[in-house]
Structures are given as structure tokens and as C-alpha cells.
């Protein structure tokens, strides 16, 4: 009573109004990205969307680990990069390669390349990197040392010898990022090394890191600096929910974004028809991975029953609005890899929904449909939990439709939608029941099949692996993969590939559904030269080394 003797409603109101007004006026400017190209010389700023935090970015620029920030691909370079579309090589740290005999591969290393700290890059660094993978198997995510026996340098060359001939594996070797010996030799545990001050040979170096955004600046001593245009590259963090990211992407804040958008014409192109372009080439096959270490997924008949119960056309429409097509169960992306297709596969490997055949397959697996439920001999209903990241809205839509269709077949399906990191550790550890994931899409049939089917990746449950999450094991298939690896002439390669396609088609180790798109969303406001249907030099994925290739193609608008 005493305290409030002088106050009255008008004063309170005035104070409130003043505070609100200051806030609004002071900040309209920063409603948009506070990271406009102020203070950046000449080349302009490239803003890329796609780095997801958990929910904020965790600083990790270790190119050999699996949790690194996407910008790492612009800091470190590999020997060469094959195109994921047609396999043609773009040289980087190697100027060329040659198989001197089926088990010996020689790379000619580029000269006059410097690390970003000024030290010279030499073939010794290449040898060091590969030997690092050998010494710390936790880093060897691609299973390089399953195939190699030695890596040595002499003069300007690095010689790689294989245990058994494996021509297609050269692509994997070539894509290994090279790290500097003079800095990494003293790292105690490179698998856990966050590498917060990265030194690489690539076109950019790290200038700042915050949990919401990090920035790279052009490396002026880069060996092809004249081809690199943007002076700065910004990576703002994504939000943890997909809807917000989609709104963000369509607000014109990014030069390059990667996000599925429903009705892209209306939601993206029309927002800025002068500058917004998109390209959605198929980037892989979206599949339902079944954990083969668990019954009844270990039974091929049960898997066939599941596969035949699916109406892939509807799933594809629900997931990606008809942008892509239904998958061929051969495992190949058609029509891109048409030339590898086994002609004996009916309808190019495309299988339509067939409920009768599905029921027959289920019966063979010991499951019968009683009262709308698919039950086993003891009367227990078949149940499945499908896991996928909560913000991959197209995967969620596909899984929702799968739930309806399998539900009609009598299987009780539940969806589990954790954050991406949880999903990732779940599939790597093999603790999932069923999962939605990507299959293939490397542009090389051998690599596609090898990653999915090679038993060397099939670790025990709870031991993480980076491929073959379903833990498929078959000595026959391993042999077939080895046969493809060592085939040097095309007829032999074709025959070996066809054998693997037959395995995919008849044994259904993974239930392929539809082609997943590479959701390339570009703005030509600041830069042009983006990959497109007219110039498909790489896939528009900004979470892989395709970024390095794209940056060398960009020019100012």
C-alpha cells in the first residue's frame, strides 16, 4: 500500500510499452541471419544448410571418425573422388592411378601441395593415414584393411597392394581423407580425437565454431585456389524438428540446402522463382532393414511374406509425393545402372503387392492368419517395431503406410521415432528390430552390395558397425562379392553382379521399397554452377565429399 502509492496504471503501461517497442525496433534487422557477408572480401559467402546438432553442434572435425561436422569435407581431401552417378573420377591429391597388376594399385601423388599450416604435403602423409587406419581399427569404417596388405611410398607414388584382386575397391581407397603425419602422429587416440584445430590440404580452413554455427574461410594457399570462388562458407545448425527446418529452407536463407519438401514447386520455387532451383535425383534406395539376428526375420519366408505384403507405389506416393519411383528389388537404381541389370529378372525386378503369395510365404514360415492377426504356432501375434529418425519426415510417412499395410496382413507394427543420433547408434549396434535406412547409391554396384551384404561388417549385436546393419552372413555371397571384386573384364563383372542381384531378389536380406531422393535445393542468387539434370556431375548431397566437387564448379552469379 505504501510502496505503490505513487504508481498507477498509466506508468506501468508506459514502461511495458517502452520495453516492447525497444525490443522490436532494435531487432528487426537481426530477424534475418546475422551472418550476412559483412567484412568478407570479394568472393562472397556461401551458406549451407544440413548440419544437424544434437540439438546443438558438437565440435568434431575428425575426418576419419563418423561424427564429424560436414565442413570437414571442405578441409580435408582424398586422393580422388568418383562420381556417385556414373563413377568417373575427379582427381584431388592424386593426379592418376593405375593397376600395374590385379593386386597392385599405384597412385601418382600431386606435387607442390601444402598443408594449411604451411608444411609440405608428401606421399608419406598418405602412407601414414592408411597405416593409422590399420593401427586403430575403430577408424577403419570402410573396412579398408580387410582388403589391403600393404601401403608404401616411393618417389611421387604410393603403392597399394591387395590381398586378393578387388578392382572396384579402388573407389573406396581413393576416397579416404588424408591427414597430416606431423600433427596426427602424436595423437594418443585418434578415434576419440575431436580435432578442433583442423589442418588439411583442402580449399577451406576453420575460422570459428559456435554451437549454433561454424564458419570456414578460403585457404589462399590451396593448390587450385583459382577455381574456388566463395571466400567464406557458413554452416548454421539445423533445428531438431523437421518442420522448422523446412520453413527455414524456404525462407531464402541458404544457397544450398538439403531437405525433403512436399510439393517443391509451391513451397520452394514459387517463393523466389528467379533464383530458386531444385534437383532431386535418386540417391539410394530406401529400405526396411530387418534385424537378421532375430527370429522371425532370420527366416527367408517371413521376409518374403513381408515384402509381398507391401504396395510400394502407395508407399512411394505417401513418402515422396511421386518424385521418385518404386525400387527394383535387384538392388540397382534404375535407369541409372540399367546396364548392370540381370535381364532374367521379371519386370526389371519390380514386384507388385501380392497378398495371396504373401500369405503362402507366411505359412511356410509357420505363421497363419487367424482373426486378422498373423500368429505363430504358439498363438503369439507377429509384432515389429520400426525405428527411424523423427525428423526424416518422408521416412516417417513411408513407415506409417508400411504400418497400415502390414497391419492389414496381421502384423502389429509400432513406430519408434528418436533423434538421429539415437537411431544411428541403434542401427550400428544392431539392437533394433526393424529400421528404415538407405541402401546403395554409391554409383558402383560392387560397393552397394558389399556394404550391405559382406559378412565382414556383420559384427555381434552391441558392437557397432558402419555397414551391413542387418548382419547378413552368407559364405556364398561373400564368395560372389569376391568374384565381382576380382573381375577385370566387363562380361565377368556383369555375371558376378547379376548373381548378387539374384540374391537380393530371392533372399530379400533387405526389403527395398522406393528410391530416395537427393534433395538438392539451390539458390542462384549468389552463386551458379550447381549440379542439375543438365549437368549431373555429382549428387547434390551436402553431407559428403560431393561438396568438394561442387565447390570447384561454383562461379559468382
Amino acid at each position, binding site marked *: 500500500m505504501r510502496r505503490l502509492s505513487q504508481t498507477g496504471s498509466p506508468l506501468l503501461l508506459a514502461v511495458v510499452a517502452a520495453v516492447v517497442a525497444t525490443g522490436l525496433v532494435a531487432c528487426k534487422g537481426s530477424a534475418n541471419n546475422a551472418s550476412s557477408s559483412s567484412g568478407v572480401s570479394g568472393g562472397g559467402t556461401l551458406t549451407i544448410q544440413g548440419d544437424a546438432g544434437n540439438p546443438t553442434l558438437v565440435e568434431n572435425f575428425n575426418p576419419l571418425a563418423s561424427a564429424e561436422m560436414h565442413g570437414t569435407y571442405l578441409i580435408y581431401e582424398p586422393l580422388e573422388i568418383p562420381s556417385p552417378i556414373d563413377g568417373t573420377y575427379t582427381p584431388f591429391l592424386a593426379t592418376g592411378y593405375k593397376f600395374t597388376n590385379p593386386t597392385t594399385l599405384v597412385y601418382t601423388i600431386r606435387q607442390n601441395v601444402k598443408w594449411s599450416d604451411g608444411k609440405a604435403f608428401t606421399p608419406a602423409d598418405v602412407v601414414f593415414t592408411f597405416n593409422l587406419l590399420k593401427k586403430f581399427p575403430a577408424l577403419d569404417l570402410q573396412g579398408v584393411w580387410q582388403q589391403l596388405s600393404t601401403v608404401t611410398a616411393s618417389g611421387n607414388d604410393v603403392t597399394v597392394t591387395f590381398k586378393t584382386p578387388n578392382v572396384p575397391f579402388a573407389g573406396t581407397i581413393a576416397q579416404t581423407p588424408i591427414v597430416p603425419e606431423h600433427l596426427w602422429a602424436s595423437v594418443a587416440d585418434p578415434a576419440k580425437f575431436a580435432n578442433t584445430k583442423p589442418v588439411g590440404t583442402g580449399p577451406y580452413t576453420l575460422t570459428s565454431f559456435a554451437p549454433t554455427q561454424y564458419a570456414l574461410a578460403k585457404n589462399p594457399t590451396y593448390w587450385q585456389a583459382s577455381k574456388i570462388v566463395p571466400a567464406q562458407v557458413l554452416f548454421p545448425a539445423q533445428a531438431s524438428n523437421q518442420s522448422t527446418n523446412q520453413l527455414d529452407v524456404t525462407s531464402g536463407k541458404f544457397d544450398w540446402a538439403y531437405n525433403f519438401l*512436399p510439393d517443391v514447386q*509451391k513451397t520452394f520455387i514459387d517463393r523466389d522463382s528467379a533464383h530458386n532451383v531444385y534437383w532431386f535425383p535418386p540417391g539410394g534406395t530406401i529400405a526396411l532393414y530387418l534385424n537378421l539376428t532375430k527370429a522371425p526375420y532370420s527366416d527367408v519366408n517371413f521376409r518374403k511374406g513381408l515384402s509381398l505384403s507391401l504396395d510400394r507405389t502407395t508407399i512411394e506416393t505417401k513418402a515422396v509425393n511421386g518424385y521418385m519411383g518404386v525400387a527394383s528389388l535387384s538392388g540397382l537404381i534404375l535407369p541409372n545402372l540399367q546396364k548392370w541389370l540381370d535381364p532374367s529378372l521379371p519386370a526389371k525386378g519390380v514386384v507388385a503387392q501380392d497378398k495371396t503369395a504373401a500369405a503362402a510365404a507366411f505359412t511356410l514360415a509357420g505363421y497363419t492368419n487367424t482373426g486378422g492377426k498373423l500368429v505363430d504356432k504358439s498363438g503369439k501375434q507377429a509384432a515389429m517395431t520400426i525405428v527411424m529418425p523423427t525428423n526424416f519426415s518422408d521416412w*516417417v510417412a513411408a513407415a506409417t503406410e508400411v504400418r*497400415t499395410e502390414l497391419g492389414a496382413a496381421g502384423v502389429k507394427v509400432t513406430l519408434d521415432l528418436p533423434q538421429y543420433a539415437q537411431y544411428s547408434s541403434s542401427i550400428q549396434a544392431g539392437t533394433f528390430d526393424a529400421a528404415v535406412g538407405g541402401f546403395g547409391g554409391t554409383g558402383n554396384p560392387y560397393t552397394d552390395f558389399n556394404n550391405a551384404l559382406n559378412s565382414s561388417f556383420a559384427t555381434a549385436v552391441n558392437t557397432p558397425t558402419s555397414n551391413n546393419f542387418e548382419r547378413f552372413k552368407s559364405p556364398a555371397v561373400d564368395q560372389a562379392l569376391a568374384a565381382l571384386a576380382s573381375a577385370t573384364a566387363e562380361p565377368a563383372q556383369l555375371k558376378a553382379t547379376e548373381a548378387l542381384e539374384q540374391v537380393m531378389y530371392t533372399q530379400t536380406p533387405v526389403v527395398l521399397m522406393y528410391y530416395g531422393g537427393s534433395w538438392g535445393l539451390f539458390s542462384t542468387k549468389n552463386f551458379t554452377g550447381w549440379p542439375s539434370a543438365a549437368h549431373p556431375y555429382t549428387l547434390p548431397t551436402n553431407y559428403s565429399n560431393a561438396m568438394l566437387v561442387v565447390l570447384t564448379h561454383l562461379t559468382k552469379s
Partner: protein
Amino acid sequence: MSILATVPPPREAPGGSAEITLRTSAALPGPVQFLSRALRTLWSNGKARLGLTILGVFILIALFAPLLAPHSPTATTFPPYLNPTSTNLFGTTGNGQDVFSQMLYGARVSLLVGLSAGLAATIVAVTIGLIAGYRPGPVDEVLSFVTNLALVIPGIPLMIILAAYIPSRSVWTIVFVVAITSWATGARVVRSQASTLRSREFVTSAVFSGERLFRVVFREILPNMTSLVAASFFSAATAAVMAEASLEFLGLGNPSTVSWGTILYYAQQQNALLTGQWVLVLAPGLAIALLALSFTLVNFGVDALSNPRLREK
């Protein structure tokens, strides 16, 4: 529990000058007569009239949904992401379902959850309130303490954790979770009224004349608290409707149910705002708001019944 749970507890005990006459253990007016008198009184209050009308409309929609809805709510036969057209008055979802039909059928679930959870919470509140109010001493102390504890513990976080723990996903999970988090306000009010009435003459005379506890509670005390219980019920129902929407929006409900909350859940998942389908966001939210509003408006009338000071002149 939303702020509406507190709107508005009567400022003073209604026993004194209230319109509800003190009833002796002699003739009790028939329940039908009582109900019709209550309704008439409610109807005379402007706000309550509005509330009853809105509620009536929703009840009718819920009852006649199969007749009113042009299509099945779950059939995915339409092209997805449509804006309102003549076939699909509110447009379609990303799965190709008709939103208008979903809204009509959704009324059933939202009303059911709201009323059931409200009822359950009220039963718990009245039970605890009566026991605490009628029996002073340690029982009262303990129950009052528990009630105060339940009041301060934030409702929505508790609901979220409970719903996350419970493995089964169904509407009844939500009813259960809402009921056990929303009883506290009602219990407090009931308790204070019960303890006031306990010392009234008609109660003491009933006790002295040998009436059993059960009869005393149900024939003497409870009838004098009808408006209080009704107010508590409507508050709880309001909170329940909001809570149900929130839990479903977070994905803690059963995604195959059709209710206003799940329409919002899917609208968010499939980004209706991005595709410009603001109707998908506006319609269910507005419906939830109107339903909650109708309960609260009726509550105004109920309060005016017992507290003449709050009646409109």
C-alpha cells in the same frame, strides 16, 4: 493443469446466502427436478448460456458424426496436401485423408476424453476432499499435504513423463494420466467446503440422530456441494481437453486415433504451414479452444449459482 483449473473458486463458502436451500433429512427434491432447476438457472446466466450452446453443438456433432461426415476419416483416397475444395471442405492431410470428416469424428474422442478425465478427476477430488474435510486430525493433515504437493508439482511435465513411461498407447492412457494430475484443485475446494459444513447444525443433528456415515455424507453434505462439484468437474474437463491435445501433439497419444490433437500432430509432422494449409492448423486448435471455452463459460454460471456476488445484475 492449466490456469483454468483455478477459474474461479468461489470467494466465500456458499452455505450462507446461497440460493440452494438447506435440506433436512426429510424430503429431497427428485433428481430430475433438481437438474431442470439447475439448468434453468444456468440458462439465465448469459455466459453459461453461451457455453451450453457451444457444448450442445459439439455434443450433437459428436453424436451424429457418421451422418454428418461426407467421407471416412481414415480413408487415404484423396490427393494429399490439398487446400479446401468442394469435396474436401478443409482440405486433405499429407496422407490424403479428408480433414473435415476427421474434425467431425475427432469431436467424439475429444469430448470423450474431456468428460471422462474430468469425471475421473472429480471423483478422486471429491473423495479425497470429503474424507479430509469430514475427518479432522491426522487424516486431514496428511491428505491436505498430499493435495498441496499435487498442486505445486507442475502438471504437464508430470503428465509427459507418466505418458512416456506407460508402454501402451491409447486414449485411456491419456484419461488416466490426466485424472491423476488434475484432482488437486477440486480436492482443496471440496475439503474446505466439507469442513465448513461438518460443523453445521443439520449435519450434527443428523449425526446425533444416528445416521450412518454414508448417509450423512451422501444425503446431507454432498447435496450442499453440488455446485462446487459441478464447478470442479467443468474445470477438470477443461484441463483434460487441453492436456489431451498437448499429449497427442507431442506424439504421446495413439497416432492412429482420430482426434483434434492428432490432427494437429500430423499437421506439424507433415508441415501444413509450409504447404500453406493453415486451415489444418486453425480448425482443430479453434475447436479445442471453443470446447475448453464452453466448459469454462458453463462454470461461470455454476459459480454464479452459488455466489450471488458474482451474478450478473
